[in-house]
């Protein structure tokens, strides 16, 4: 078990290093560097900037060193907790993110919980009651869930929430609670504002899980061992939940890492559309302003979440699937 964990951890570290390399490459991608940006902003204020001054800045910040050296330097300061300075917000990156990261985490996690809590039971139910009402409606909704872009769904829900429920969608608080101290009312208000982002973020994933669960479950249900178990006279649902479900759920667990990737991939856009105070809008703003120090760190955080998710799904699989456990332990 420990050896397995160790190997997985090492693999995760290697992937993370590869990720950081890609991110740093992207951070460096836009033409021009900080010295050019600085010169442009000075020029915009009416100052004259000599090429020598630009060169001095470049020297002072080490911008003329080779790519690999700059990368090592960047990684080193990241590991020391220095995330850099955001030009766009005129604050250290760590300050910009500290207030926003928790919300991103909460929404992504809630979406994942919804995906599995709704997707798996619905998939099982559709498979058991194949060609019945619930099955057809789940399939139908599933097609739409996969075909609707997240942001469009968010916009539609915002519109409906406003029209029918009078909810002030967008942001996480209603205007009357802004700047108020915490209270039950405010907490409740916040929860009601988080329903839409979580639903939107979870929709495509839920649809995919229902599809996978239904397909694998249908495969399992037709196997002889299920019939044998049913023949013992146990109640059908007991049999279904105890035997085929355990087998059918394995592909679901093993793709948990991917699912997390999808959720993280969709998170920024939902945050932007619903103007949540999470990392999404900051990410977009940093990209549009080509503030790559901030964008790079955000990208790195997204990737870190994915790597952690994959690690968790590996461990879950180890616990769930005896074949993997045996395979590892017999080595």
């Amino acid at each position: 078990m420990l050896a397995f964990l160790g190997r997985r951890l090492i693999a995760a570290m290697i992937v993370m290093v590869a990720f950081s390399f890609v991110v740093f490459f992207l951070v460096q991608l836009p033409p021009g560097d900080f010295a050019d940006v600085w010169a442009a902003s000075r020029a915009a204020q009416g100052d004259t900037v000599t090429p020598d001054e630009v060169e001095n800045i470049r020297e002072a910040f080490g911008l003329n060193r080779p790519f690999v050296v700059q990368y090592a330097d960047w990684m080193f300061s990241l590991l020391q907790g220095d995330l850099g300075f955001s030009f766009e917000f005129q604050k250290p990156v760590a300050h910009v993110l500290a207030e926003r990261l928790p919300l991103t985490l909460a929404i992504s996690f809630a979406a994942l919980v919804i995906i599995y809590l709704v997707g798996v039971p619905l998939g099982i139910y559709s498979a058991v009651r194949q060609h019945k009402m619930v099955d057809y409606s789940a399939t139908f909704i599933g097609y739409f869930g996969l075909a609707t872009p997240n942001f469009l769904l968010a916009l539609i829900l915002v519109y409906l929430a406003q029209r029918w429920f009078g909810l002030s969608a967008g942001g996480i608080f209603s205007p009357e609670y802004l700047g108020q101290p915490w209270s039950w009312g405010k907490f409740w208000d916040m929860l009601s504002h988080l329903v839409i982002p979580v639903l939107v973020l979870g929709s495509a994933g839920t649809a995919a899980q229902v599809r996978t669960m239904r397909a694998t479950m249908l495969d399992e249900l037709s196997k002889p061992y299920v019939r044998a178990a049913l023949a013992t006279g146990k109640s059908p649902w007991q049999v279904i939940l105890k035997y085929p479900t355990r087998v059918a759920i394995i592909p679901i667990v093993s793709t948990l890492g991917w699912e997390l990737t999808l959720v993280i991939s969709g998170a920024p856009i939902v945050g932007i559309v619903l103007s949540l105070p999470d990392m999404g809008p900051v990410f977009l703003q940093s990209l549009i302003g080509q503030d790559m120090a901030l964008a790079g760190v955000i990208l790195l955080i997204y990737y870190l979440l994915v790597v952690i998710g994959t690690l968790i799904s590996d461990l879950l699989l180890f616990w769930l699937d005896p074949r993997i456990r045996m395979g590892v332990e017999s080595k």
Partner: protein
Amino acid sequence: MTAAADLSRRQLAWRAFRSNRLAFLSLCLLVLLVFVSLFAEFFAPYTPQERNRAYTDGAPMGITFTNADGGLSLAPMVIARVTERDPDTLRRVTVADPGARWPIAFFARGESYSWFGLFESDIHFFGVGDGGYLHLFGTDRLGRDIFSRTLYAFRTSLSIGLASVVAAFVLGITVGGIAGYLGGIVDAAIMRVIEFLQSIPTLPLWLTVAAAVPREWTALQIYLVMTLILAMIGWTTLARRVRSRIIAMHSDEHVLAARLGGNRPVRVFRKHMLPAFTGYLIVDLTLAFSTIVLAETALSFLGLGLREPVVSLGVLMLPAQSIAAIILTPWYLIPGFFVVIVVLLLNFIGDGVRDAADPSSY
């Protein structure tokens, strides 16, 4: 009906596809949509940049078959609009005038256009006569007709999707083919890279790449770069599919025979392996196509993809980013439903092809 034995594989597959009603209907609908958007200049009543200053941010106008006096008529009409001053705020407002109708004319004259520079005309499929206007999906802030713009945008979105899918296809087949055919270290290395790419959250990554595109580039340059970026999103699944099929077929007798016959690897691949899994590839292609259309819409919607004056479905929805805009002018969202429709149709077609390509279904 001819016996199954007399038909070629392709005819059998086509027959199986035809018998799947949903898939066949989807294909017909998609062909129709593509046809209409291909001739967008003709089918759209307005050109994409034409502005109607009397009806800015106007709501969609419905078609009616009732006369002003309540009688039914066979010819379609729209209820006329009049512009007047609001008695309280003195702002100009446009309201429906139930007492008047603008009849819809077919093959009406409007703004002149040129279809890909091939021929010029000013005849549109439909329109209303002088003095009137017709905006089926409403207008945007500048008074441009959203229906017409949607037709043009549909064409752009599909064309960039198609270009990206072709690029992804070439890339996927080449890389997957090399990995599968050569095997060994090359295969292992390529597969690690693909797994790495697939584990990356794609949207943030390509957003970052798109943000790095210089602002002063022309629309055409951005279009080409976007094609490449979108192709990068779709090629990995194709490469994996090609590779796994080739490995599965490596030891097949017909492949061995082709190799012993002295064919070069590229020919063996193209003539003796590729035809055997074209069906699966088409399925993957339709799926990749729909992912790419969704990605393009998302990128453009965020302002990091295509930009005005190019109109794509995502570009059209760009003004719908603010919540106030959605509440006041919900018709900005209409182009989004075309994205949903295209993706749905592609999924249905993909499912149909999958079944049709499976020999056990004949």
